[in-house]
């Protein structure tokens, strides 16, 4: 894949270079493990301070500052501290961690080891989803190679610090991407998320020990922060949105794919880098950060006040492509998985597709989510099948409102937000679609294929 001139590749710098291979020799020829060598000569707190100063925010979804997360770790309990790398990449629309793990696994291993050294972790786990078997093999192989060179394991590079990394494979459950569900799963149980408080991983995590859970891309960034320094890192992108981000674009664009960028707008990504809509099509809406995030409608104006008091008034293409930009437009950058919906897509049918996903993936622990997600699947599906009832749109809103904020974990929001935002922005289309599809002579083939839940 050729790198677009508007890209700013740091994490994926080598991943697609011809001749770059995932083995340790190639990685070391490109300066690999130099930062781990440097790290073990530094004071642990200095590395943590550097990460904090860089303003690095988590790349997995919530965007919480990584350095601050590290500082929450309970040091008084005397229990071992664990590091968990969340590689359960499964938020629909997201495929960035896949690139790192398959093409440049040593970068992740180095990032993990620097982070573990800095936070004095006793052991690290990489929780990788089952559907990436080759990725798990690549990581196992990389760890074996790194152990031979003393980058992982006992007495790392003669520093006196020891840490092993264990690759743990999931078994196809989306909820394992939720950090406390992941921890339960790693303990050998059903991945039912834990309630916070009290179960904040930094205090009561894996085996009730303090635990740091970081995303793959976040941990890779730690290596680059050490390499370029916190100030240089913070100069990439906007303040509070520092560093690059890997965006994954799928759906109705000419050039879908993964692109590492900084400081550009949503329009530059979709139109310049991805080539805009497919021929003869127009862009109808964008789901900006994975399927759980609220939808952005093409044509709507995004207005509000900046922190400095000045007003902004954006079209969809003007939205700054970062945490704060997308938040200012009323959604979230999430995991960076952007789905583009063109004018061939019926919004109610897209919702039926996603509600099938969420009802399948609810862990079943909280009644509003377990029952509500299934109701939402049933209601959206009957709309596709032309059996919509007059009260259905209001019913969907009511069900979604009763899930939102009434569950143990954020999955409840992930179910509710698409329903609430799609209806809010496309209510007319829902009514028109329901009416059109209730006629007996309508061809429902395309809609059934898109809902894809037979």
């Amino acid at each position, binding site marked *: 894949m050729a790198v677009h001139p508007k890209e700013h590749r740091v994490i994926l710098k080598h991943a697609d270079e011809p001749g770059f291979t995932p083995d340790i020799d190639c990685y070391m020829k490109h300066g690999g493990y130099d930062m781990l060598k440097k790290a073990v000569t530094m004071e642990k707190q200095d590395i943590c301070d550097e990460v904090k100063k860089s303003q690095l925010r988590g790349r997995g979804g919530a965007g919480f500052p990584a350095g601050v997360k590290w500082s929450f770790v309970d040091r008084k309990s005397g229990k*071992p501290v664990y590091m968990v790398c969340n590689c359960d*990449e*499964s*938020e*629909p*629309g*997201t*495929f960035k*961690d*896949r690139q790192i793990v398959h093409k440049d696994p040593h970068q992740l291993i180095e990032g993990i080891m620097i982070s573990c050294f800095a936070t004095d972790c006793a*052991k690290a786990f990489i929780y990788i*989803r*089952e*559907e*990436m*078997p*080759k990725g798990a093999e690549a990581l196992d192989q990389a760890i074996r190679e790194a152990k031979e060179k003393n980058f992982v394991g006992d007495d790392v590079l003669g520093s006196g610090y020891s840490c*092993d990394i*264990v690759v*743990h*494979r*999931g*078994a*196809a*459950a*989306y909820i394992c991407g939720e950090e406390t569900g992941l921890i339960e*799963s*790693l*303990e*050998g*149980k*059903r*991945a039912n998320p834990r309630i916070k408080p009290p179960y904040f991983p930094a205090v009561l995590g894996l*085996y009730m020990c303090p635990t740091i859970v970081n995303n793959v891309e976040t941990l890779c960034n730690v290596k680059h922060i050490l390499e370029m320094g916190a100030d240089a890192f913070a100069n990439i992108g906007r303040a509070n949105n520092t560093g690059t981000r890997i965006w*994954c*674009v*799928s*759906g*109705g664009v000419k050039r*879908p*794919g*993964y692109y590492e960028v900084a400081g550009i707008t949503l329009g530059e990504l979709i139109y310049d880098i991805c080539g805009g809509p497919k021929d003869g099509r127009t862009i109808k809406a964008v789901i900006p950060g994975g*399927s759980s995030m609220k939808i952005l409608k093409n044509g709507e104006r995004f207005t509000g006040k900046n922190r400095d008091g000045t007003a902004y008034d954006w079209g969809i293409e003007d939205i700054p492509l970062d945490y704060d930009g997308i938040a200012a437009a009323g959604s979230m950058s999430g995991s960076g*998985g952007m*789905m583009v*919906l063109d004018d061939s897509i019926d919004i109610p049918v*897209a919702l039926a*597709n*996603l509600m099938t*996903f969420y009802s*399948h*993936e609810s*862990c079943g622990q909280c009644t509003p989510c377990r029952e509500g997600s299934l109701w939402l699947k049933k209601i959206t599906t009957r709309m596709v099948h032309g059996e919509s009832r007059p009260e259905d749109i209001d019913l969907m809103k009511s069900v979604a409102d009763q899930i939102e904020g009434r569950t143990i974990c954020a999955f409840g929001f992930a179910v509710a937000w698409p329903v609430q935002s799609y209806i809010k922005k496309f209510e007319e289309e829902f009514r028109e679609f329901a009416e059109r599809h209730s006629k007996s002579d309508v061809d429902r083939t395309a809609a*059934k*294929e*898109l*809902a*894809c*839940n*037979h």
Partner: protein
Amino acid sequence: MNLKPETLAEIEEAIPKYPEKRSAVMPLLHAIQKDQGLLSNEAAEWVAEKLEMEPINVLSVITFYPFFRQHKIGKRHIRVCRTLSCAMAGGSKVCDTMLSEFDTSLNGVSPDGEVTVEFAECLASCGSAPVMLVDDELYENLDETKTKEICDRIKTEATGA
């Protein structure tokens, strides 16, 4: 339990990796399912004894995770992604092609015992949609021609074996 020597070796290697034995339940279930094709009650009891757990707690893991199964499937496990990006790119048609090529129905075992075709939720390769997994192998940017080629390959490998 009649497990292959390599499966037993994998199991013995997995357990000490974790600070607590119980954490090895998923790696053990993966190893046994690969060995036996499914996870029987006997397997659950065997794992429970090995990890000093109650059998019910092993069963609760087996029944929670979609990848773990208590039923037989075809020799090849085919999973077509059904989630939005793949559905927008024609994932449903890919699945239909697989089903008709192997004369089977969704989630069933084909008459020749060769395949089970299922829908999977997002396989995290949305930029090259539609995609499917055939056992450990990911196939991307599928259209009808490409899908049929993969079917032919599976059929050739089946007769060759």
